[in-house]
C-alpha cells in the first residue's frame, strides 16, 4: 500500500503502468507481422501452424512460389516499378512546388496552398473513383494500368513531399539565399546553390516516404488496375487474402516489406554520407526525428 502511495506521490519516477502499456502496444503492433514473416518460411502449407523452415514459398515450389507463380512476381515487380516512378517524378515536382509555395506571396498563393494540401484530407476512395472516372470518360488516352496507377500515386504522394520540404524551408529561413543574392547570384542560382543543398535531408526523407506510400498504396492501385498484370502486392493480398491456400502470399508481403526497408536504409546511408561530407556532427536519427516533429507541426 505504501509502495502504491509512494508510486503515486512521485510524479518524476517511472510510471510503471505506462511502461507496461507501451510495451504491450509495441508487442501488439509488431508481433503479428513477425509471425506472418515466420510463416512465410514454413515448410508446409499452413499459414497458422509452425511446420519447419524453408525457402519453399520464395523460390522452391515450382508452381506456387513467388519466383515461379507469375501473378506473384508480376505483382512485386509492378509495386517496385510504380514506387520508383512515383519517387522519380514526385520528389522534384514536390520540391519545386514546396519552394514555390513557401516563398510566393502574390495573389492566389493562399488558394494554391490550400489546394496543395487538399489531397491530404481526401480519402483514397474518393481520389480513386475520381481518377477512374476521369480516365474512362475524359482523358481516355490514358489507359488503365501502369500509367494510370503512376499518375494516381504521384498525385496522392505529392502533398507529403510538400509538407516535409515546407517544414524544413520555414526552419531554414531565407538568410542563405539572401546572402547568395548579395554576393551576386541570380534567383535561380541562389536556390540551386544555396538552398537545395540545405534541403537534402528533407528531400531524402520525402523520397523515402513517397516510396513507402507507393508500395503501401491499395485503393488507387486497385481502382486503376487493368487486371492481374498490373496488380500490385497489396491488391493481390486483397484478392487472395481470405482464400489464399499457401504462405506464398506471406512471402510476397515479406519481400515487399524488405524492399521498403532497403530503400529506407539506403536513403538513411545517403543522408549520413552527405552530412559526413559536409562535416556535420550529431546524431542522424536525432535529425530525422526533429524533421518529423517539425513536419507534424
Amino acid at each position, binding site marked *: 500500500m505504501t509502495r502504491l502511495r509512494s508510486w503515486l506521490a512521485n510524479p518524476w519516477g517511472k510510471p510503471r503502468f505506462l511502461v507496461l502499456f507501451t510495451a504491450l502496444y509495441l508487442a501488439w503492433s509488431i508481433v503479428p507481422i513477425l509471425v506472418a514473416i515466420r510463416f512465410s518460411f514454413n515448410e508446409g502449407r499452413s499459414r497458422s501452424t509452425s511446420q519447419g523452415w524453408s525457402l519453399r514459398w520464395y523460390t522452391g515450389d515450382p508452381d506456387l512460389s513467388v519466383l515461379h507463380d507469375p*501473378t506473384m512476381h508480376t505483382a512485386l515487380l509492378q509495386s517496385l516499378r510504380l514506387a520508383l516512378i512515383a519517387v522519380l517524378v514526385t520528389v522534384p515536382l514536390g520540391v519545386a512546388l514546396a519552394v514555390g509555395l513557401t516563398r510566393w506571396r502574390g495573389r492566389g498563393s493562399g488558394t494554391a496552398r490550400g489546394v496543395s494540401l487538399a489531397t491530404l484530407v481526401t480519402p483514397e476512395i474518393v481520389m480513386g473513383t475520381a481518377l477512374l472516372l476521369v480516365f*474512362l*470518360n475524359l482523358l*481516355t488516352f490514358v*489507359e488503365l494500368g501502369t500509367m494510370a496507377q503512376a499518375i494516381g500515386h504521384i498525385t496522392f504522394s505529392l502533398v507529403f513531399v510538400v509538407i516535409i520540404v515546407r517544414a524544413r524551408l520555414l526552419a531554414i529561413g531565407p538568410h542563405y539565399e539572401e546572402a547568395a543574392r548579395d554576393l551576386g547570384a541570380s534567383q535561380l542560382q541562389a536556390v540551386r546553390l544555396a538552398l537545395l543543398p540545405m534541403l537534402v535531408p528533407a528531400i531524402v526523407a520525402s523520397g523515402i516516404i513517397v516510396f513507402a506510400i507507393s508500395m503501401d498504396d491499395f485503393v488507387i492501385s486497385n481502382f486503376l488496375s*487493368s*487486371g492481374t*498484370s498490373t496488380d500490385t502486392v497489396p491488391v493481390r493480398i486483397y484478392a487472395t487474402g481470405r482464400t489464399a*491456400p499457401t504462405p506464398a502470399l506471406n512471402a510476397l508481403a515479406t519481400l515487399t516489406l524488405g524492399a521498403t526497408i532497403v530503400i529506407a536504409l539506403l536513403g538513411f546511408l545517403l543522408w549520413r554520407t552527405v552530412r559526413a561530407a559536409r562535416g556535420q556532427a550529431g546524431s542522424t536519427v536525432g535529425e530525422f526525428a526533429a524533421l518529423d516533429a517539425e513536419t507534424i507541426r
Partner: protein
Amino acid sequence: MTLHPRESRYGRRELLQRGAAGAFLLSSMGSLLAACGGSDGGSGADLTFATPENPVTWEVFEDNPMIASGLEPESGTLRIYNWNGYLWPKIKKDFAKEYGVKVEETFFSTTDEAVAKISSGAVDFDVFFPTTDRVGRLILGKSLQPLNGDYLPNLANVWASLRDPWYDKGSQYTVPYATWTTGIGYRTDKIAASPAKLANPYEIYWDEQAKGKLYLLDDSRDAPAHMLLKNGIADINTENPDDIALAKAELKSLYDQNVKTSTDDYTNLPEGKAWVHQMWSGSAISAQYYLPDGVGTDALGYWFPQDGRGVIGSDMLAIPSNAKNPVLAHHFLNYLLDAKHGYDNFVNYTGYQPPFTALNPDKLVADGVVPKNLRTAIVRESDFDVASQFTELTPTGATEWQNAWAEFKAGV
C-alpha cells in the same frame, strides 16, 4: 494580421467577385470539356434483346468489320481476359510454344467489372469470355469484333444447338466455350439434411446447421435467381417489381444465417469454410482437387433440380474490337475448340464442360472425371431445352435489380 471583429476576411464585393468568377469558370470549363470530351455515347442504336424464344442475328457494322481471311497470325503477346481458374495454364503454355508467342492472362472477379472495362475501351485484350446476359450490349456497343469463320474450322465440333445459338445466330461474334449450371453445393459430412430430400430443396439455405457456414455466389443475377426459383418463379429474367422485391426479401432473410458472398466456391466448400454454398457445376467438379488430406470426394454433394428446371448457361469466347492481335486470337479460339484441347482443359483444370459432340456425358463418371456422387453436375445438350438461361435486362430492369442487390449487400 488582425481584423476588427466586424471586418470579415472577404468583403461583400470580393465575395461576389469570387462567386462570379467561380460560376464563369465552371460554365466555361463545362463547354471546354464538352468540346474535347472523351467517348461520346453514340447510343442511337436500338436495344434488341435476344432470348431463347426470340433469337437474334446481329448485324455486322460497317465501322467494325471482320478481319480478312488468309492472314498470318501476329507475333505479339496474346492477352486474355478471363475468370480466375477458367483456363488451364498448360493450354496457354502449349499454345505459346506452338505459335512462338507469349500468352498473358488477366483475371477479373465479377462480370460487372469486366464488362465495364471492355465496353469502356480503356483496356485492350485479344480474347474475352462474355456471358449470355451481357453479350448483346457488347455487340451493339461494337466492343466485340465479328469473327471470321475461315479461321475457325473446329467450330464444327460444337453441339448444333450452340453453333447457332439464340444469343448470336450464326456464331457471328462468339463461339461457345463451356456450359454450366447453378446448383447448391453442400458438405454431406457436415450437414444432416440434403436438398434432394427437402420438400423445397432451396430451403437448405435456411437450415440451422448451415448457420455461419452459408455462402451465396457474389453475382447479382445468380444469387437472386435461386430466390426466385424457390418461390416457383421460373422466369429468372423477370423485371416485375413484385418479383424483385420478393427475391430481395428472401435474400435479406438469410442475414440470420450470417450469409456471405463469394465467387471462390471451388475452395470454400472443400476447405470447410462453407457447408452450404450456391455453386456452379464446374466448381463442384474441380472442388475435389482442393479437399484437404483425409477428406474424400464423397464429402461433397451437388444438387440441381431433378426436372431440370434450374439455372443453366453457356459461356463463350469473343474477340474485343480493339484487339491488337486479332488473327492470333482467332487461332487461339480455334485451338480451344479442338476436341482434345477442350476436353483436357475441362478434365485437368476447369471442371466446366465444353459443348462438344465428341464428349459423351454418360462416360464422364466411368472415366473417373466426375465422382459418382457429383454426377448431377454433368450438363447435357437436352438440359438447355428445359432449364432457364440468363438474358439481357432492360435499363430499367437492370437498375431495379442492381438496387435490390445493393440493398442486400448493405446489410440493412
